[in-house]
């Protein structure tokens, strides 16, 4: 039962705009009755439509679920509506409307202050939109059908929608979540996925621990080519040039000097060997990785001084 429509019709009746036949229709389906009501409202319907596109309510306006959203506003004249507002306050528990956005919470608060004089706590009476035009300083809160207008439940709803939005984002990330519907199933899927990922990490670390002690020094000697081969998809032309590094003398004392000259980068150890790499083939990541490894290697194996100049690409 849609109480707000009932109230609205009572108010209309006072205005002598609607015949009492419509009260009988209210027993039927909610949406149907609203449509009928709105069809009988005539020119007021147009104002409702135009009000729906009010820019104040912006992109968050949501009619995808098929509910007809109405604006509810507070009627400033106490005389006419005192009757049915008291009726509303009596039926406080079963509130028929009230979807708001978070940013309209302040409006609810302001509305509360004005309403307290009317003896309704967080009640909002659903009135004719024509009255809106008479009183432009109304506080507008978008209301959804069949939901409570209590401030706490509004906050709850806003929070729940935030959570469901984020869960939709999660749904895109976790594979296989599309088939399951409903929050509970999705959350179970997500939990299972996280658990399986953690188990995979553990399994792979076990595998690594088996492999690792047999190939102790292997990781340190990883060349750029191997790094690329392991971790990146593109591996073709750069490998041949980078393979030179494998024969790089790692046990030499001295300095690593990167210098940029004429569009090429010269990596040279202080002794005789040096390699020239065309700049466009350099990947910064690999070189920094190399740099790091060489420093580490030299630090470990030699007691000598290490000097290095950080290179900059032009």
């Amino acid at each position: 039962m849609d109480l707000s429509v009932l109230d609205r019709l009572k108010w209309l009746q006072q205005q002598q705009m609607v015949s009492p036949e419509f009260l009988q229709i209210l027993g039927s389906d909610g949406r149907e009755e609203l449509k009928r009501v709105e069809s009988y409202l005539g020119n007021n319907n147009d104002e409702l439509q135009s009000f729906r596109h009010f820019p104040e309510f912006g992109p968050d306006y949501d009619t995808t679920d098929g509910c007809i959203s109405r604006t509810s506003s507070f009627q400033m004249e106490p005389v006419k509506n005192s009757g049915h507002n008291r009726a509303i306050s009596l039926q406080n528990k079963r509130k028929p409307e009230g979807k708001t956005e978070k940013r309209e919470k302040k409006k609810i608060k302001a509305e509360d202050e004005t309403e307290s004089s009317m003896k309704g706590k967080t009640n909002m009476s659903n009135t004719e939109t024509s009255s809106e035009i008479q009183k432009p300083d109304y506080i507008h809160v978008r209301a959804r059908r069949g939901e409570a207008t209590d401030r706490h439940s509004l906050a709850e709803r806003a929070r729940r929608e935030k959570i469901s939005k984020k869960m939709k984002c999660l749904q895109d990330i976790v594979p296989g979540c599309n088939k399951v519907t409903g929050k509970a199933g999705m959350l179970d899927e997500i939990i299972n996925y996280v658990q399986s990922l953690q188990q995979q990490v553990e399994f792979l670390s076990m595998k690594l621990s088996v492999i690792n002690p047999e190939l102790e020094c292997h990781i340190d000697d990883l060349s750029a080519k191997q790094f690329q081969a392991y971790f990146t998809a593109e591996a073709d032309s750069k490998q041949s040039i980078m393979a030179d590094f494998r024969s790089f003398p790692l046990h030499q004392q001295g300095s690593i000097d990167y210098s940029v000259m004429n569009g090429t980068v010269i990596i040279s150890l202080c002794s005789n060997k040096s390699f020239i790499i065309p700049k466009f083939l350099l990947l910064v990541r690999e070189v920094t990785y190399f740099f790091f490894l060489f420093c580490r290697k030299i630090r470990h194996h030699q007691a000598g001084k290490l000097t290095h100049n950080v290179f900059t690409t032009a």
Partner: protein
Amino acid sequence: MASADKLINTDVPEKDVFAFHFLQSLSNLRKQNPFDTPDQKNYRVRKIKKAAYVSMARAAGGSSRLWSRALLRRADKDDNKIVRFSRRKRKVTWKISSKRRRSNQRAPVVEEAAERLRNLVPGGGGMETSKLMEETAHYIKCLSMQVKVMQCLVDGLSPK
């Protein structure tokens, strides 16, 4: 890797960053236990696993995420280092007391699943459900990246 989410920023660095950090931590491990392999296999496995998590937390953006901070704090606590973020921790626990009081009134289905998630995701104890969802999304992305890196490494190192 840019994410398609417009609500949450779940950008995660490339695979190379993860690989770099992981290899760095592995070589750190080897530096600590240079030549003698510990007898118990579990010890080594645990060390590697811990190194994997720590490197993942560092690669995914150090202090900029709640879960990475909690992970690093947990790892440092094991090593008896001084905890740097104690002030934030106090702030977090205040949040728990204020938000948990009303938790009975929230949707019970979501909340009990969120409880389970909190046990899984590091640092989940001090977060509200909506924040928990963001952190879970980022955590899942980083975890999957770390798994890929480790898989590549194992494939590369395994004898052919």
